């Protein structure tokens, strides 16, 4: 019964964590803007936490470089299952404008599995919220299956 309660509340009130993996800050400030009064994702029960051990959804922005890919993997592994990863912005998807740089891995999915891709440079807050909602649907499927 207790597990059912947790499963239900996890999909109804996901806790998100944001990690900047070498982006230009454009997507980061748009992610933060989602939390502020105009977009206000907290009304959907979404809350931003700083500890990966509390988080259900990981929002990753940026093109991932050779220095922070181990940090990214480390954070991903610390999150409890089931978990979802959302890559935000053109950089997070493929490396975007920085794909030719020497220090760029190019895409979050080269390091950790990604569930939802949110395009845009920078991604709009509406698109990010849409991505989180999409991840929650996946969550319910993951729990069922």
């Amino acid at each position, binding site marked *: 019964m207790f597990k059912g309660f947790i499963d239900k509340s996890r999909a109804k009130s996901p806790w998100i964590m*944001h*990690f*900047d*993996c*070498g*982006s*230009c*800050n*454009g*997507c*980061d*400030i*748009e992610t*933060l*803007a989602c939390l*502020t*009064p*105009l977009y206000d994702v907290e009304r959907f029960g979404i809350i931003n*936490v*700083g*500890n*990966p051990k509390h988080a259900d959804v990981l929002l990753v922005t*940026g*093109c991932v*470089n050779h*220095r*922070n890919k181990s*940090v990214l993997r480390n*954070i991903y592994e610390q999150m409890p299952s089931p978990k979802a990863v959302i890559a935000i912005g053109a950089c997070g998807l493929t490396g975007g*404008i*920085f794909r*030719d*740089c*020497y*220090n*760029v891995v190019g895409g979050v999915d080269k390091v950790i599995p990604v569930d939802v891709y949110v395009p845009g*440079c*920078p991604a*709009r807050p509406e698109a990010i919220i849409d991505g989180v909602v999409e991840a929650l649907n996946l969550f319910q499927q993951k729990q069922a299956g």
Partner: protein
Amino acid sequence: MSKRTIIPFGPQHPVLPEPVHVKLVVEDEIVKEAVPALGYVHRGLEMLASVRDYHQMINVCERVCGICSMIHATCYCQTIEKMMGVEVTSRAEYLRVIWSELHRMHSHLLWLGLFADAFGFESLFMQFWKVRERVMDINEATAGNRVIVSVNVVGGVRADLSGEQLRWILDELVIMEKELKEMEKTILNDYTVKSRTVGKGVMTHDQALELGAAGPTLRGSGVEQDMRMLGYGAYKHLDFAPVVHPDGDCFARSWVRFQEVYQSIRLVRQAIADLPEGDLAVKVKGNPEGEEVTRVEQPRGECLYYIKGNGTKNLDRLRIRTPTFANIPPLLAMLPECELADVPVIILSIDPCISCTER
């Protein structure tokens, strides 16, 4: 004597939107030494100058840092224009000033919000970001994108402001000024806020000069230095003076930034009032050749671009020196002898932009 402990701060930390790693050597609750470790956002985008042509590099320069993207692009375009001897029309110069100052406003409001969040005043954070959304709306309505506006081209600007849009911007500025006046009482006069900021992370006038601080961090220590006073672009026609506070603590720096938002509002009003008629951009032919240095004032301080061209469409060398790079040595001088709980406030007080620093 108590034992020394090393506490890692970052790279992933709730107070930081960006990854920076600082090793704090603490004795009990007092920080004795701070050792930074950078490189988490290094992409190496200066190298892209050898792959992309000099027009495409504008887009790359805008993404050095998303928060002050407009000013990066302006600086880059000004450098190329100086090298190629291009005279920009005065309407384009004024439009650049309008968007630059809008960017400064949104950057400072963003910082004021994050700063309030750092000392645990979440409702103030929300209030500042609510005001900031008005600037984002202006950006979106006038240039088509919220954060990275992409209006600069070599030789001028890409977008124009219609009379209707100018009137709407002026109306929005009146509302913003009113909302900021209400918040001024809290961020600058509230005793709970003051107890977290006054006297924390003090840097004297001489120290600031010696360590080479830039921007509001420098002006918060009483040094009157603002690159806009060099009179680049349309700033030579506008009337303003650097905002200076003598105290050199976290409160002084937040005071300077808050007053600079008002200053930006005044500058936008002046620029809109004097906006001349004319073309938006001049045609540019040929490729840049030679060397050139340009300095502009970003929300965080002085930004320097050095460009070396060789007469082909690719640049030989692009070097960007950003304000946060200059502000890291002052930060390391502020941290020793502070309490561990004040570390987030002091780190944020220089307005760190790691993505600028590491590029």
